């Protein structure tokens, strides 16, 4: 028995999503819920948590933000990445009438791609609101469209799609459509706005939070969020659980 040690996997494709973000597809697979994460390790460099963008094949979308992600971005097809997981609690999918409203802010679009794929495979209607500060930071919006989701793009500066916040667009959608459930991932301010929306419109909501993770195993306490551990109790939390 070798526990849950990191496994090595070769990169089989790399896609440039925007100037700072790449998607890495690995020759590995696992069984995961959308919203779950894995710890990605580069020996001698660092290990960080990333949401799964697919479990079959294992796929991560990684933004270049620091030393570790710079080194990951320098990898080529055929190079190896190490991973362990999946960890945490992902999105719960309830198949119901009405549309599933997905709200992704910035890098938060990544786990929602995985969720949208599962929802579409189950024959569910999906509206994806993809928000960013500006056009060049938009992420993965074409992937949602390719899956048959209705996509609404929102940028804060109006350089693409609707000018304004993704959550403002969400209020409009919630007025025009019967929304079955809301799923969101993005910066903390956006998630607070999503919680207000869910409370105000009496919608079941789930939000994926970021935490400062070390172990990823629910023991070190580093990612505490109130009484919760983001790595074990989350990263997806029901909006009414706080």
């Amino acid at each position, binding site marked *: 028995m070798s526990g849950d*040690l*990191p496994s090595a996997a070769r990169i089989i494709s790399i896609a440039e999503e925007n100037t700072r973000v790449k998607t890495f597809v690995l020759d590995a697979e696992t069984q995961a819920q959308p919203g779950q994460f894995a710890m990605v390790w580069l*020996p*001698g460099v660092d290990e960080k948590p990333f949401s799964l963008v697919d479990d079959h094949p294992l796929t991560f979308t990684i933004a270049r933000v620091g030393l570790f992600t710079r080194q990951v971005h320098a990898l080529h097809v055929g190079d190896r990445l190490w991973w362990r997981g999946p960890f945490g609690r992902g999105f719960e999918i309830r198949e119901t009438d009405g549309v599933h409203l997905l709200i992704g802010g910035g890098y938060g679009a990544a786990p929602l791609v995985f969720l949208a794929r599962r929802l579409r495979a189950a024959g569910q209607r999906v509206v994806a609101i993809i928000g960013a500060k500006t056009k060049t930071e938009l992420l993965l919006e074409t992937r949602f469209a390719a899956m048959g989701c209705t996509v609404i793009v929102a940028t804060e500066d109006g350089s693409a799609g609707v000018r304004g916040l993704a959550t403002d667009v969400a209020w409009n959608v919630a007025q025009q459509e019967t929304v079955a459930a809301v799923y969101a991932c993005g910066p903390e301010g956006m998630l607070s706005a999503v919680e207000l929306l869910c409370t105000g419109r009496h919608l079941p909501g789930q939000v994926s939070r970021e935490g400062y993770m*070390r172990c990823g195993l*629910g*023991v070190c*306490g580093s990612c505490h969020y109130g*009484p919760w551990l983001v790595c074990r109790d989350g990263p997806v939390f029901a909006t009414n659980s706080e």
Partner: protein
Amino acid sequence: MRTTSPDLRVDLCRVRLPNPLVLASGILGTSAQLLERVARCGAGAVTTKSCGPVPRTGHPNPTVIDWGHGLINAVGLPNPGVEAEVEIIAVARELLAPLGVPLIASIFADTVAGFAAVAERISAARPDLIEINISCPNVAAELGRPFALDAVSAAQVTAAVRAATELPIIVKLSPNVTDIVAIARAVEGAGADAIAAINTLGPGMVIDVESGRPILANRVGGVSGPAIRPIAVRCVYDICTAVNVPVVGIGGVSCGRDAVEMLMAGATAVGVGSAVYRGGPEVFGRIRDELAEWMSAHGYTSLSDFRGIAHER
């Protein structure tokens, strides 16, 4: 036939615990709300993550790995420093008071004087007990050889803390010594009110065979979990034969049967740490209930009915 539920209460250095299960230091003790949650889940006492004189970021990742028979960790004592820790303890005390679950403040330092200074400062926040962590096996490169590896330095730290606080002090010992009994006697002689044993074993190493590199960023780390339980039980057994102060038995306990075993070795209370990995914070309630069920099934009404019985024959 109606049976009354067994009495799980225990006194540790004149502090009353509702049951003998103690959240071990280094696990989940990073915030007041998390400590409260563990108490609500069924812990009889909770220990804060060890705090030092100044903030520390700890080691880079990977820091904790499931190697197959337990965990290996080199988290590296990240903590916000004693000034911030005092605030956490003050909030935690208020949250824990209505639950009747005492709070143990764990401290470390790199010098004898540092231990005394942290103990004095932390005492102002009035935790119920202070744990002196002299046995972390994965910070030697920065903090020096653990004080727990030598009877003289272990006693020096204990005496310095003894002089710095009125609160009861628990000294947490390392199994990574040739004679843990000699260290236990030395800290008892220097004024320890209780002994906690054991800290993690090792340090150990796990190598990734694809890259040929140690997995932990610190290369080595403390081994914990089910694999070390027989060693922990032996250490507790030996220490209990040699000292009169109570012992908190820690090491690989993950079910009621394991807790019974530790109590039979002579432990007054039982630490639980790595079991949180598989069982979550809820593991405390499960172990407590399994312990009570075992006692009922064997006709025991209090922990003292069978504590230390492994020594009798």
